[in-house]
């Protein structure tokens, strides 16, 4: 073992070298997708950089610096910060919940000076960090023991229920499914998995009855019968499908999408950004975007598989799976396969917090890659 390898194993690598270790091909891939997003936002504004594209570019630039910065921080530091970050996020979620009860209606934001913070977005990262850290500390097979399992389940359930009460069904689903998949990756026994699936089958009808808000039920009903209310709540789905479908094989051409330009497409710059791509670039363009997404996920899996620490592996997969779930839920939603739940398309949709969260997540993924040679003892609690 030469000196460099030793230092690498200890994570004591000079900053310049860390920058060199960053997987720039992945970074370029991410930037490519973001550029596609800029183009779509430019088109959605009728061929104008304002109001969306220029601000999105600025955010991406900041996000990119965050990515690089996060990547250069030692993985063990992130491990040490995992629980505090989770606790902080939970606190904010509760604060928002209280503010929401006191204030008016749904509250998802917290004002921190000039920054608008969405605790539910923060929680996506914090939960992955906290779960990875907890699961890192478990021996093989230990995860399936009830007293060990109960802790991560609570870690998932508390924020998920808080977010659901906001109400934000999409993010709650994302948290729950993302967390559950981490447990799966950590080696949860098939016995538990089967039991959970069975439990969900029982729980869904009662959740429908007691947990879902009226507007959420309406979304589901509208989804099941979109034509029953083609001009009302079904409008979004109907118009999104028309936009996508009318693109055909090669699309109507950049800036030529009538559905988006004439405002038939609702929320086109945020949740319904994919139909613009489908309309203007067709099946060909949309599949190309899917391939770019798949490549990013492929990179994520590679990074996870090559990390030497369980924490790094779980963190990398946690970030990757979250990214995947974003894409899946958004795409299924705009294609009319699941109800409208308000999940943006990562890197493409206009929105500051989502962009920061996603870039922060990629920063963690990069950090896992940069620090892939580090081994972390099972009982370590990280390093500040």
């Amino acid at each position: 073992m030469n000196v460099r390898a030793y230092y690498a194993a200890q994570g004591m690598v000079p900053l310049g070298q860390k920058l060199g270790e960053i997987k720039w091909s992945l970074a370029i891939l991410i930037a490519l997708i973001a550029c596609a997003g800029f183009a779509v936002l430019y088109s959605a504004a009728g061929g104008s950089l304002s109001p969306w594209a220029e601000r999105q570019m600025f955010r991406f630039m900041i996000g990119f610096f965050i990515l690089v910065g996060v990547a250069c921080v030692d993985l063990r530091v992130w491990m040490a910060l995992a629980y505090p970050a989770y606790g902080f996020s939970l606190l904010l979620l509760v604060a928002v919940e209280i503010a929401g009860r006191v204030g008016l209606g749904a509250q998802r934001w917290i004002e921190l000076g000039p920054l608008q913070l969405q605790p539910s977005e923060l929680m996506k990262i914090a939960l992955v960090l906290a779960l990875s850290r907890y699961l890192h500390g478990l021996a093989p097979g230990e995860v399936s023991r009830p007293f060990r399992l109960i802790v991560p389940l609570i870690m998932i359930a508390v924020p998920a229920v808080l977010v659901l009460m906001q109400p934000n069904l999409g993010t709650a689903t994302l948290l729950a499914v993302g967390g559950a998949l981490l447990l799966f990756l950590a080696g949860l026994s098939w016995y538990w998995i089967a039991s959970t699936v069975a439990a969900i089958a029982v729980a869904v009808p009662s959740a429908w009855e007691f947990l879902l808000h009226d507007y959420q039920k309406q979304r589901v009903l509208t989804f099941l019968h979109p034509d029953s209310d083609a001009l009302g709540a079904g409008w979004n789905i109907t118009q999104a499908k028309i936009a996508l479908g009318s693109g055909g094989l090669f699309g109507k051409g950049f800036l030529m999408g009538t559905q988006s330009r004439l405002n038939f497409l609702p929320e086109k710059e945020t949740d319904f950004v994919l139909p613009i791509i489908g309309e203007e670039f067709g099946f060909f363009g949309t599949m190309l975007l899917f391939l770019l997404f798949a490549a990013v996920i492929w990179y994520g899996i590679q990074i996870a598989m090559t990390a030497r620490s369980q924490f790094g592996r779980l963190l990398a997969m946690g970030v990757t799976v979250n990214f995947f779930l974003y894409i899946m839920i958004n795409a299924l939603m705009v294609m009319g396969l699941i109800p409208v739940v308000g999940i943006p398309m990562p890197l493409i949709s206009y929105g500051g917090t989502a962009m920061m969260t996603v870039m922060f997540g990629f920063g963690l993924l990069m950090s896992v890659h940069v620090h892939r040679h580090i081994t972390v003892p099972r009982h370590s609690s990280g390093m500040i």
Partner: protein
Amino acid sequence: MSSLDKKPKSRHATFSRRTLLLSGGMTAVFGVLSGRLYQLQIENGDLYLNRAEDNRINQRLLAPRRGRILDRFGVALASNRRNYRVLLVPERTRGGVVATLDALAKVIPINERLRAKALKDAATNKSFVPLVVAENLSWDDFARLNLDLPYLPGIQPDVGDTRDYPYTEELSHVLGYVAPVAVEDKSSAQDSAGEDQLLEVPGVRIGKRGIEKTYDIAIRGGAGASRVEVNAYGRVIRELDRNGGKPGRDVHLTIDRELQSLIYERLKDDSASCAVMDVESGDVLALVSTPGFDPNAFNVGLSPDQWNDLTLSDHKPLINKALSGAYPPGSTFKTVTALAALDAGVITPDTILHCSGVVSLGSHDFHCWKTGGHGAMNLRLGIKNSCDCYFYQVAMKLGIDGLQAAARRLGLGQATGIEIPGERSGFIPDRYWKQATFKEPWQPGETLVAGIGQGYILATPLQLCVLAARIASGMQVNPRIVHSLGTQKLERAAPEAIGFSPEALAAVREGLKAATTEPGGTGYPWRITDGQMAMAGKTGTAQVRVITKEERLHGVRSNESLPWTLRDHALFIAYAPIDKPRYACSVIIEHGAVNAHPQVQVARDALLLAQQRDILGRPSAYPVDSADAAL
């Protein structure tokens, strides 16, 4: 499965295996997404493309220019006038619709009704939809509005088309009028020629009466369309393409506007009608019914007061009396009796019949109009003096069967088929009708009454004009009023001979000539003195009341002494010139039988003007004829 978990394995191996499994799952999800994308964009792409086009494209129908109606010299009788309008676009106003209307009212007159309508429209439409605030502005108002436009944001001046009838009442019954489409118009259009999109154009007017109705399909043309791109809120972004539609075709009438005006002017204060036609071609040069109405008022919309004036007047301005008025033809019918008898051979022109002032049949006495009688009468004198007793005896010899057959040959008792809706067929009685209707046989006395054009017989003024034309020409002429549609000349078969012997026709014409050219003839005082243009004609009086025995004993009251509605109708049929007849004319003035014989004077002046215009040699202005001449 649990056996796998019991075996202590490295966490890394488990993680890798599960990651692979998850990758498989993610790949499957991408497969589903791609499949769905394929289904939406490739399989159903055309369907969604159509729906996207439906979304963005609005078709707006455009009304083409309505064809004009022209007289025989090309004078426009119905045309399109510029309609100066004011539109208001609520979203472009400053300070709201109410403030803008207030400001507008200082420039042009805006009454309460218009104001209320504008506010209602503004409330029910999207704010970018232009509302019509006022229509048919005068040029002065419109010019003033344009001058003040910079201070009236949201106000748009606009120029549209509206139907214009420059000769208003004169031609109202011939031309008819146009009015907004009613629900039943749409259903009838569907029944006949399929749905006409034109009927869906907002504000479109279609022909409701007269020529406007008969030739509405040709005159209205085909709807055009403007395809515009709209956004999700319905705002027009731009026009994609425009098809102006098929312009309506012009209708060229056989009417001579100047002749029509002269006659209308002379009859406008009466309830009267007049027809003038070419005795050979059947071209109708004038078709007047008085009083008329202003067709422009129907286009704009009648007020209840105007409507009441039109419907409640005892002069009945809405009825086209020239076609729809059926009157006893009175003595004008004696021409028919004479021709029928000559044709049947029951008399010759020289047969002498005596008039003592009364003819008795059974217990009834039939009186001549001249108390004391005319003495010995042959056919010429019988017609000249309009001797009732002479024709009672002729009718008795002839019988009803010969009389009704001849009347039908001369065009009575059936519609002439002129191209104007609402024509009545008049009536010629016969034995079968009498038996069927009254369950009684025909009475010989009724034949006598029929012989002088009274009783059951009814004829329209146009039919009487045809009667005069057929006697004058000896041909079975039928009237027509439309010469051509656009450049398409409407051909019609040349008329056949009427089938009466030339001698019989000559004998009757001789009588008609005597009546208007020899002193003592019933029309002599109002003859055309220019021998080249002189007319031959027959007066008639249709009795409206029953003259009792008592009254006859003390002297029949003069029409002048009776209330208007009890006076007799005055009739006259004529043709001119005598030697080579060109024009036939009929006039009926309701309750107008006075000694001055105004009906004869009108016919005289009409026939005179028609001939003068003929002699002036004005070429016919039908575009087809001039095109034919060039070839």
